[in-house]
């Protein structure tokens, strides 16, 4: 179960400001906190506010100074992606490619050059995916395409795309059913999502995020871009991981509870 810490994202106001003011201490501290809370990869997004390439380079540099874990370079822009990946010490994660022609063609050379772990959104040209079949159709292009580009299955992270439940009450189950189908079709790949989309427009969002995470894990999702400082969420993740049989002898769960990391309330 992989946790990608989502907090260093320039679409959040505090981060955009910290980027602009080159507030190194704040950003490094945020990276450290996320790792201490259990994030195994730190997402870095510098897209908002212009100068994305320079901001990305700076961000990668200072975050790497602070933490040992790999980074997840987050941008739809091939130039910023390349700039970020070129500075990563170790194998990074690319967030994200899609089956949209233009984005695929722009990012593929970057994928081939750096061979990162790749988050691939199950969407192509035309429209956002609606059904499980829509997502499977895009995955049919993405998975073989990435494998042909030299990315092994275990480095591919398919994202079924989560849409807000508040807009349509079928959206969460649509994503869960898609996860189940992708898991069945591609047992060797990982399935990831940005958790918080599901709760957009609804109150007590973290409650929905938590419930959705458990459902997604039971459908075969095994990676999350999330807020690792949400301790109840991290506790629930450890419990769900044990429950789906991915924590041998429940040892991670037990030791985490002993260390005071995982709590019921």
């Amino acid at each position, binding site marked *: 179960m992989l946790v990608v810490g989502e907090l260093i994202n320039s679409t959040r106001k505090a981060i955009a400001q910290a980027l602009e003011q080159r507030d190194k201490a704040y950003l490094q501290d945020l990276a450290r906190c996320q790792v201490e809370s259990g994030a195994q990869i730190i997402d870095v997004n510098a897209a908002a506010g212009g100068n994305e390439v320079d901001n990305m380079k700076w961000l990668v540099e200072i975050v790497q100074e602070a933490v040992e874990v790999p980074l997840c370079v987050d941008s*739809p*822009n091939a130039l910023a992606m390349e700039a970020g990946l070129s500075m990563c010490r170790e194998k990074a994660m690319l967030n994200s490619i899609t089956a*949209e022609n*233009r*984005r695929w063609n722009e990012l593929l050379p970057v994928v081939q050059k750096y061979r990162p772990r790749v988050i691939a959104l199950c*969407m192509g040209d*035309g429209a*956002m995916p609606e059904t499980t079949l829509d997502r499977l159709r895009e995955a049919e292009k993405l998975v073989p395409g990435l494998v042909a580009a030299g990315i092994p299955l275990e480095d591919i992270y398919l994202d079924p795309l989560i849409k807000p439940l508040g*807009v349509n009450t079928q959206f969460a189950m649509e994503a869960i059913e898609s996860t189940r189908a992708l898991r069945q079709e591609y047992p060797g790949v990982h399935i990831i999502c940005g958790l918080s989309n599901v709760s957009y427009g*609804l109150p007590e969002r973290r409650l929905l995020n938590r419930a959705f995470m458990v459902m997604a894990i039971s459908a075969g999702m095994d990676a999350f871009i999330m807020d690792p400082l949400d301790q109840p969420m991290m506790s629930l993740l450890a419990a769900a991981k044990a429950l789906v049989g991915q924590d041998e002898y429940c040892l991670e769960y037990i030791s985490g509870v002993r260390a005071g990391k995982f709590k019921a309330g």
Partner: protein
Amino acid sequence: MSVLEDIKQAVINGNPPKVKEFTEKALAGGLNPNDVINEGLIGGMSIIGVKFKNNEVYVPEVLIAARAMHAGMGVIKPLLAGGDIQSKGTFVIGTVKGDLHDIGKNLVIMMLEGAGFKVIDLGIDVPTEKFVQAIKEHKPQIVGLSALLTTTMTQMKSTVEELKPYRNSIKVMIGGAPVTERFAEEIGADAYAPDAATAVEIATELLAS
């Protein structure tokens, strides 16, 4: 309680049968259809809009209220000459080329319609030519551009530039998750709206200016 007040309340409560019933009653009682729309149906939706902005109601409740409002509109439309409802203004909207997101845009449309705007929805992945065509055809006062990706913000910029020849007659508003007030200023848009409820307020101000 007056029948207009009843309509308003039924919209707020999201009750389509009641909205329909009270709307019929209002019309049977000789009230002007446009008053029924503006004071009853839109009156209810604007209260929902304010509550939405203040986080007192949530997206599904806004959807339910909009559905209730449409139940009333359905009663009134056939009665109006040419089926035309007197609108507050015309608003052309679309997600810019290269961007397939529509959820945010659709929320904005719902709120605008709820506030009495006539909205022309060009959909997603909309090239500049299509905006231009819609401007010529529908003569809107406002054009709204949506983008959910940082890469398509570049497209937003070029669309705003290409709309320059029409800027005498239209105002341009932009929005979407990565978009900011500063970006709006940089690319020369008239306004930026951070959310659907604010979009209505700003559109209303733009009409007045």
